[in-house]
């Protein structure tokens, strides 16, 4: 099947390894993956700040870029949800409405469309899942703790197929990390406190690596982990499912150097 890859703007610029892992992963499952070069951003940074209208050019770029694909896959629940809920076009709204129905977050695409049974990856670490609010409550990637309803998690279902990976149960299963887009700078004090509390839950439960479907949440938590020189690393789910180990994990544990930092060096996409 023809899959168009939508890469969030900040992943493109700051976490290219996540985009590469997503692309390689989808190819492993026999998808023909294209990355249309005229995409920039889903428009959410403007829209969530109250400037939805300023995102219209982003909407047009997305509509033009992705009209032709069977599916659009994005390694972010938040960007996927924004496109699903808000994409519209002044030039070709039929195409825009079609894209809203064809776009999937990576984990839900792998479970619901690809119906992935086996994952050829090994990750022998204690992993805590940070389920992004938009992925969970917006896209229903996993059940929400507020509802009286049967639990499930597409993210966990995939991670459970990874060899050696030990999923850790957190005290608060789906508390927001406090990133929230521009919230993270406008409401800096609360945002940081939320992130610190979220990270503390993982640390308290002996998590070695925090993973999730949204790099924005992970970037925020990574910033907090690095500042406190924590040994907890972050890793997008695409990287784990693509079988990318933290190569230096046991022996690279140098004093004073966080695993997150080591990881950056090892997995920097330079020449990848």
């Amino acid at each position, binding site marked *: 099947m023809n899959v168009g890859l939508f*890469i969030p*703007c900040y*992943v493109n*610029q*700051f*976490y*290219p390894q996540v*985009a*590469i892992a997503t*692309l390689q992963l989808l190819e492993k499952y026999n998808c023909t993956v294209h*990355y249309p*070069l*005229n995409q*920039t*951003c889903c*428009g959410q940074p*403007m*829209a*969530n*700040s*109250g*400037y*939805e209208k*300023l995102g219209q*050019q982003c909407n047009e*770029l997305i509509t033009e870029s992705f009209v032709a694909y069977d599916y659009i896959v994005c390694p972010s629940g938040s960007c996927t949800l924004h496109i699903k809920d808000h994409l519209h076009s002044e030039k070709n709204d039929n195409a825009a409405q079609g894209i809203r129905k064809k776009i999937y977050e990576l984990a839900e695409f792998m479970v619901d469309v690809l119906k992935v049974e086996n994952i050829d990856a090994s990750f022998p670490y204690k992993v805590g899942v940070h389920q992004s*609010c*938009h992925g969970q*409550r*917006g896209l229903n990637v996993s059940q*929400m*703790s*507020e*509802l*009286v309803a049967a639990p499930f998690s597409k993210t966990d279902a995939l991670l459970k197929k990874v060899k050696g990976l030990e999923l850790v149960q957190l005290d608060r299963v789906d*508390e*927001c990390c*406090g*990133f*929230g887009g521009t*919230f993270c*700078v406008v*409401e*800096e*004090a*609360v*945002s*940081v*406190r*939320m992130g610190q*509390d979220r990270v503390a839950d993982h640390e308290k439960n002996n998590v070695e690596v925090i993973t999730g479907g949204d790099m924005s949440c992970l970037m925020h938590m*990574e*910033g*907090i982990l*690095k*500042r406190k020189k924590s040994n907890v690393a972050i890793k997008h789910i695409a990287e784990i499912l693509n079988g990318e180990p933290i190569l230096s994990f046991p022996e690279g544990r140098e004093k004073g150097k966080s695993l997150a930092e080591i990881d950056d060096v090892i997995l*920097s*996409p*330079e020449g*990848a």
Partner: protein
Amino acid sequence: MSVTNAKHPELAAAFNKDAARVGWHDETLWWIRQKRDKAAWTLPEWEELRETASQIKLNTLSNLSEYLTAFEKNALANGAIVHWAADAKEHNEIVHKILQQHKVTQLVKSKSMLTEECGLNDYLAANGVDVVDTDLGERIVQLANEHPSHIVLPCIHWKKEEIGELFHQHLNTPKGNADPQFLTEAARIHLREKFLTRKVAITGVNFAIAETGEFVVSTNEGNADMGAHLAEVHIACMGIEKLIPQRKHLGVFLRLLARSATGQPVTTYNSHFKTPNKNQQLHIILVDNGRSVQLGREDFRNSLKCIRCGACFNTCPVYRRSGGHSYHTAVAGPIGSILAPNFDMKKNADLPFASTLCGSCTNVCPVKIDIHNQLYKWRQVLTEEGHSPKTKTLAMKLMAFVLSKPAAFNLGGKVGRKVMRWFPFLVNNKLNPWYKQRDMPVPPKQSFTEWYKKNKK
């Protein structure tokens, strides 16, 4: 009471100066959220109950004028005196006029968020009337010269030791005694004297039933009953959205209310008031105060379904870590943030932004108000109406410009990452709110687009 022009980010930052207190506040409210979860899970039909309540309220709002007229007719037939107040000012004046007619200058009042919204206490104080709030939590904040920080748990931001000290100052309890049982007993004695001597009692209204003209007041302390039964004049103040069509609908809401609010199976006292006692007057004040305007806003009208359970407060990760007073409005929390801009867009333009849009509020809401979607929509409205800072508009326009053109985005990203690598101090400084308490991501040498062009295209 203190009046401030500070906005949510500043007030929340001030609250966060005491990190230990923030942790305590968060844990306390999270505990209530967990109690709510347990109570909800005792009912397999919970989600169906929420949907039913939502539908009943939507029906009520769609036919509000008819239900209001029916309620008035039935209440009058029951012997109540019905008043209509267009706004807070009229409401306060009606209350004052009733007091003057009875030559009364002191009264007891059980919990009513409507009277908070209308600023009744301050108004009456300015007119020489002594109001004693009889809900224990409200009495505590009243003694402290504060407003409630939570609609169900007004003094949730107070620790028991601080309440001990407050009671020592105001109620002469022994210094250093912070035993909750002892302090409650002291408050009971203090309030008993007020109940026995006040001739007028004000209560709020949780549900008013159009079909019967009766209304229901829910309290855990029985203080509404103590006030209303002992007084010669009972004034019940209610927003016009408090109606439900029929008595048979009440069970749906009572089952949801207490479980959502505190995790109790039912509120301790759900008292029905219908016909005034002999020699007693029963006044009902129906207050609009912006509700008709909100009803006319298609995107926001269903915020009027709210039954004031406070579940959205307890689950809100922002509320738990910023405290009720950071919302600078009578009703704080997520629901307050979608109600407040209706009253005053300029003053409350910050509140819809005091959220990560995580959506937990929407999920706990017993009447299924899509709170987080309305927060998003208010952001758009406030910006359209010009209540966004000029600097923000400029920054957003610049961002939109870069993101509108792939070439500008790619070049901007490349230059930005280079600058970050070569001159890290340009971003790693105190002017960058991200960097204050978080490290910046390490910028890679190439973007994904650059990698893709080299390796895949």
